[in-house]
């Protein structure tokens, strides 16, 4: 009798690959610490400094959490940036300084997220439009609608709602707590529920998932709804932070491409089925750290952008070499 155990190939390499985001994160933290120390800026190594670094990436973190779902089902969402703007403007206009309108405004933004996500999902699953094109089209539609009604800051956020961006709970920023809760929720969903299993299955191989009786279209639509809801939430946060809705806040922050970039840096493959929320979280923190490192070192914004570009490509190349599979 031949033992299968002897035939199993060693998989130390694969394990390394799965932990790669953690290594990248550790490297980024080290570079940050070394930079701060060498410049004698030890005040940037305190817990407060850490919180401030994290606090800079709340909106990106929220968007990327959602984008992770879209990419895990082998889709992608380019409409998040303009959806963020639309959500911010919508909420701000509805509130218009009235504390009593906070709840309706939040509900309206969330509804917008559900509608956009559903449309994206249906375009991709029912009309079989390539996700890049479907969400790019959706993005243009949202931008057009928004631009025809609003051209500058619109509405006003009541001070009560500004708690979202500026409030603190036992010393921690409220918005950071919301992001942490969102990440934990996403983790629970992906790791422990059947829906999470279905996400990985559909992303891994749609035909296999369908043959196993999974309603794949529903899973894809649900992933897009989650993605759009997260973007709508990011819009609410940005409205709270700017105290008003700006119709260009999403595209200015380049949340579409940046959210995809951090998901990919976090080890989630664009072909779907592999990766997860912790990688994305690492990716977001890595991005914030890069910003902070450049700020500490006093390097100008254009060089920073070049470095970001190099780091994204290097990270993806790193995974590609590691896994010798189609990564991106």
């Amino acid at each position, binding site marked *: *009798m031949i033992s299968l155990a002897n035939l199993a190939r060693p*998989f130390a390499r694969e394990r390394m690959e799965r932990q790669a985001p953690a290594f990248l994160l550790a490297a980024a933290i080290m570079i940050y610490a070394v930079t701060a120390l060498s410049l004698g800026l030890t005040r940037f190594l305190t817990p407060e400094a850490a919180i401030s670094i994290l606090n800079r990436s709340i909106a990106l973190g929220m968007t990327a959490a959602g984008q992770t779902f879209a990419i895990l089902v082998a889709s992608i969402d380019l409409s998040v940036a303009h959806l963020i703007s639309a959500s911010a403007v919508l909420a701000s206009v509805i509130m218009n300084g009235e504390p009593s309108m906070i709840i309706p405004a939040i509900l309206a933004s969330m509804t917008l997220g559900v509608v956009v996500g559903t449309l994206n999902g249906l375009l991709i699953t029912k009309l079989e439009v390539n996700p890049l094109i479907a969400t790019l089209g959706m993005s243009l539609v949202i931008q057009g609608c928004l631009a025809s009604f609003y051209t500058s800051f619109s509405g006003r956020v009541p001070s009560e709602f500004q708690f979202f961006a500026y409030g603190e709970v036992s010393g921690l920023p409220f918005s950071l707590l919301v992001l942490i809760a969102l990440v934990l929720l996403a983790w629970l969903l992906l790791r*422990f529920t059947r829906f999470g*299993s279905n996400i*990985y*299955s559909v992303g*891994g191989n749609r035909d*296999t998932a369908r043959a*196993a009786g999974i309603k794949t279209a529903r899973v894809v639509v649900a992933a897009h709804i989650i993605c759009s809801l997260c973007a709508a939430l990011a819009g609410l946060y940005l409205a709270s932070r700017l105290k008003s809705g700006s119709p260009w806040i999403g595209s200015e922050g380049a949340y579409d491409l940046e959210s995809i970039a951090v998901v990919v840096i976090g080890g989630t493959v664009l072909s779907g*089925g592999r990766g997860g929320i912790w990688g994305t979280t690492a990716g977001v923190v890595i991005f914030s750290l890069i910003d902070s490192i450049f700020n500490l070192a006093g390097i100008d914004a254009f060089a920073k952008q070049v470095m970001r570009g190099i780091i994204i490509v290097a990270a993806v190349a790193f995974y590609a070499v590691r896994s010798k599979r189609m990564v991106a």
Partner: protein
Amino acid sequence: MSGPAPAIEMRGISKSFTGVKALRDVGFDCAPGEVHALAGENGAGKSTLMKVLSGVYRPDAGTIAINGIEHHFKHPMDALQAGISIIYQEFSLLPERTVAQNIFLGREPTRYGIVDQKVMDIEARRVIALFGPSHHIKPDTVVSDLDVASQQLVEIAKAVSLNAKVIVMDEPTAALNDAECEVLFDLVETLKKSGVAVIYITHRMREITRLADRVTVLKDGAVAVSFDAVPAPDVIVHAMVGRDIGDYYAPAALQEEIGLTMLAVRGAGNDRLNDISFDLRAGEIAGFAGLQGAGRVALAMALFGASPFTRGEVSLAGRPALFRNPREAIRAGIGLLPGDRKAEALVLMQSVSDNGMLTARSLSPVTGSDRKTPFVSDQEMNRLLEQVDVRAADYAHEIKNLSGGNQQKAIVARWLALNPKLLIFIEPTRGIDVNAKAGIYHLMRDLARKGTAIMMVSSDLPEVLGTADRIFVMRSGELAGEFPRGVSEAQVMLAATGEITTKPEAA
């Protein structure tokens, strides 16, 4: 038939696609604890029949009964729920998920909405344990970390866990080496003992002889013959092909056809290969046998410059031939026909003639005409395609519509345009049906007669023994033996496994 009532009984199944009769009045049954082999050439209707059985297609006529109860499947899920599982050639596993997650794909047990990992773990362990103590697969192993045989075990475990009463295996050994095949055969025996009806689709006579209780041969969409006991292999082949297999393999090279030394390898090696020395003469076909991973493909890739030798000497027609990349090797007169045609050899969306021109164009100046290269013009290419008997309605049509055999011949034409000194065939007839295989063997012989040296790497041992003038056996990256034509399968297997002292029927 005698014995227990059939677990599955298909009667009078007919199915047409846009006027073409794919199945005509086919009857097929399989009893619990029985292995019923389904044989037939590609296109004979085996897959269509199984797709009817699994609910993918609905038959135009005929009935399907499970344990005597008639079923009408509207959807593959219906068949699955009725206890029919199909294990396809290409596994339907998710490589990035664990063994347990794959076994429970789409039906994960939950408690309060949370996936119950413990239950999945226990059930996965239970099902895997059914296949004996030697299969140590942990439920939390990621499938891509398993070898192919273990993956297949997971696939079968999934079917067993679904309480499948009928398991269809569609050419399950296609991706397995000999050791892994043995594992699979054990699994099939286990399934049989536990009362599962196994429908086993295969081309390979050895597997039918070894496993099957009954054999049914399909030809042109109808049952050609059904044997209640397994007859001699040539009887089955005769039924499949509709002719004798006397001229199946091409004749050996005559003494005067073998020319001077074309390729000489001395003490060559790299990280996969060690101390390789052999000669190949013009006009001969050298077969390379060995287990999966023995280094046969690595040797081909080293000669072709794809993963070069790092030491030793190689000469081709008297000139040094240690190539660093395929382009150098091709320029010097080496051609290679890869094992995975679709992935490595063809541009599926381009025409037959474009595929033929591919290498000639790549070696020509980029500014030249694409219809006329220094090696061949497109008219000459079309003549070459005709010469090697590529059958297509029009060579300007996409090559993806051609059969495997015709695609392979088109790749031969691609190399012929360059007048190669050495042609390396890797798994030359993989996925090609029986009749077309004979065509490939005869084509290889014709090329050899014209003075080309041919190196053939194949996992199909009868094919190596039937075609090659000399047989080299590889083991662990080294040449383990060289045999003349006429060597027995057993001798080759002993050299390949290194078990010279064990009993000969181990092959």
